[in-house]
């Protein structure tokens, strides 16, 4: 599925270092003019096309070159100076680090001023969507069993029915998925049951995924009974609705991870004005209070604290703690220890 892509240096025909990163998807939306807005993003085309079309309706003269890659590759590309005008990522830690390390340009507009404090940092990084991590279950595969509402109950469920869940539990491979890593590290600090859950999952031959899309697909087909820490975007919810009850989304009551999808304008950006205009559009949809049918959920109200009392992961230097190679190595070692008990 992944296409091994070459650096944008080649695509753009610009002189510069040859950068290599995996391009998962890429599409060019031509505009009437010569200006091209180059976006690097972690959001699939399926999710993001409506935003791009809305933008082109406002600014038909601007063509859009949209490249999808993993959050780690995205961060590496921006660090290497790849000439993108806008970077959209679900890995807020990596995005934050880019801003912190001086790889982002500051941007200010009336709409960024409307953004609550917790949804931006220093006019460098802007959150435009808040998404929660959820548990997705296949109702057929856990028929007859109580639906867990907390991690404690999930642990009990998995532990008490090892045969039924063997090989049928899925979660992020935190070594590969930046988002999974962020969720896992955040969880280890927020709740002490994370490691116990990891150990219980580890004994059940867990299926590890790079991305939430595949995980949801596998729950839908019944390959997985339970997928833990899936990004509960609207796509997952729609799938749950369409499946006629077969796929169910469970929100944990003890603790919920809420991630902010963020945008930065890279230091190397050339189409700064167009990038700002697209950020404004994204923020407008992020700040919406109506139930418009945009693919990504809005930021939500009341200071980022949702109705259940959970607030999004904070944009701040603490995000960089687990990006430190020493910490990452230590965390992954512990995680592997728990997950891979063959």
């Amino acid at each position: 599925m992944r296409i091994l892509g070459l650096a944008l240096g080649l695509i753009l025909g610009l002189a510069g270092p040859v950068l290599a990163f995996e391009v998962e998807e890429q599409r060019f939306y031509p505009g009437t003019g010569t200006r091209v807005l180059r976006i690097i993003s972690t959001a699939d085309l399926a999710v993001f096309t409506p935003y791009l079309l809305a933008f082109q309706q406002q600014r038909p003269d601007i063509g859009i070159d949209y490249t999808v890659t993993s959050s780690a590759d995205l961060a590496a590309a921006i660090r290497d100076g790849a000439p993108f005008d806008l970077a959209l990522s679900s890995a807020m830690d990596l995005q934050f680090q880019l801003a912190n390390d001086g790889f982002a340009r500051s941007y200010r507009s009336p709409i960024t001023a409307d953004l609550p404090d917790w949804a931006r940092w220093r006019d460098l990084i802007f959150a435009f969507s808040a998404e929660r991590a959820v548990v997705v279950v296949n109702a057929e595969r856990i028929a007859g069993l109580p639906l867990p509402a907390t991690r404690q109950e999930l642990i009990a469920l998995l532990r008490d029915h090892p045969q039924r869940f063997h090989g049928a539990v899925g979660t992020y491979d935190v070594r590969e998925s930046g988002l999974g890593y962020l969720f896992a590290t955040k969880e280890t600090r927020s709740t002490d049951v994370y490691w116990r859950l990891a150990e219980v999952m580890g004994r059940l031959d867990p299926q590890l995924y790079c991305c939430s899309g595949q995980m949801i697909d596998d729950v839908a087909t019944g390959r997985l009974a339970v997928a833990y820490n899936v990004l509960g975007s609207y796509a997952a919810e729609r799938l749950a609705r369409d499946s006629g009850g077969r796929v169910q989304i469970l929100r944990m009551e003890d603790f919920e991870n809420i991630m902010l999808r963020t945008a930065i304008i890279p230091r190397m950006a050339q189409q700064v004005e167009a990038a700002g205009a697209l950020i404004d559009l994204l923020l407008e949809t992020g700040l919406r209070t109506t139930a418009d049918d945009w693919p990504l959920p809005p930021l939500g109200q009341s200071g980022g604290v949702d109705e259940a009392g959970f607030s999004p992961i904070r944009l701040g230097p603490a995000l960089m703690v687990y990006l430190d190679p020493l910490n990452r190595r230590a965390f992954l070692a512990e995680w592997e220890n728990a997950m891979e008990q063959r």
Partner: protein
Amino acid sequence: MTPTGSIGRRLTLLLAGVAALLSFLSWSLVTGLAREAAERTQDNVLVASATTIAETLRSEQGEVRLELPYSAFSMLDAIGEDRVFYRVTAAGALLTGYADLPDPDKALLPGRVHFQTGDYSGEAIRMVAVQRVVLAGAQPVPVTVTVAQTRQGVDEIATEMSRLAAALSVGFFVVAVGLSAIAARTSLRPLNEIAAAVSRRGPSDLRPLRRAAPAELAPLMSALNRLMDRLGQSIRRSEDFIAEAAHRVRTPLATVRAQAEIALHTISDETERQRMRGIIRAVDESSRSAGQLLDHATVAFRADDLARDPIDLADLARQTAATLEATAALRDIRLHLDLVPVAVAGDAVLLDSALRNVLDNAIKYSPEDTTVTITLTTVGKMGRITITDEGPGLGDGPTEMLTERFRRGANTAGIVGSGLGLTIARDVVVAHGGHLDLQHGEHGRGACVSLVLPLA
């Protein structure tokens, strides 16, 4: 006198200037202190962060190990949205973090915190470095933990506090200016009070000022009192001098007149007698002038500090008429008095002098065997003494001119006079708050002179 600016305004401006200076000083002081406080807070947070990291250092299998504690980073956004950089080196080799972070500019001592300000990644940063010696195997390894942060939060706090301090300083200044104006007015009040007290005084009130005055005004007060004392003395001297002069003129004149009178009786030659009468007349004129001058001077002095004794004008008219009875009788002139009691407040000597001069005129200018009438009436709040005669009247010219000094009418041929009589009468009634009324008599005959005085 041209005022050379107001002390009050100068004082207010001076105090306002001082207030402006103080406001500015306090603003810059607060701004500086706020920045200092914010910087210190940042330093404290940085120290706490670096120390927290240093505390997690340990050695495992002869190697220095470390895990960055979450709190070491989460505390760093306490001040503001500042970029964070860090580095951990063991014996000079990078363990983790930003390799190109500036090195400490001094040798580090274990247990001592090193502060440093510098530039990194295009921004000013504050850096804190701590060193800890970790035993890796048998080898003590110095490990340096450096945590750095940009200073945007500090700048923001400082700017905000500076703005707040500016607003407060402006407020302080406005209040201070208001208070300055009040203070200036208050401190000038004794001066104004003394000025008011001095100007309230009568023109001849030369008593020394006896007021409690601030020490700064004491020299002014004593100078003023000395001046008034000298003035009083000189006035007294000239008063004495005039009286003395008039006296000295009159006494020899009286002698001359007596001698001339005797000589007149002893000589029989008609031309000689005529000459002698001329001498007597001239002496009379001189004597009259000297007396009138003395009276006029008396009026001037007594009017300055006018006595306000209760006086019944009827009594006064009777007494004055009595003293002139003989003069009138010599010329067969009858004095008719038509009196009612009229009470006024004033100086009996002056009023007598005024009335005597007017009555003197009436007798002097009337032909023999006529009647002079003195009538007392009250009109509204004024009392009026009217002297009517059957003489030649005041003439055709404007009557006011007759009150001018040394002004005599056209009808005075052969009649002794100095031209000061009506001047004295007018000055006396004016000093009493009244006026002199000069009218022609009824049917174009005689004069009708009134002294109009306010009732007591």
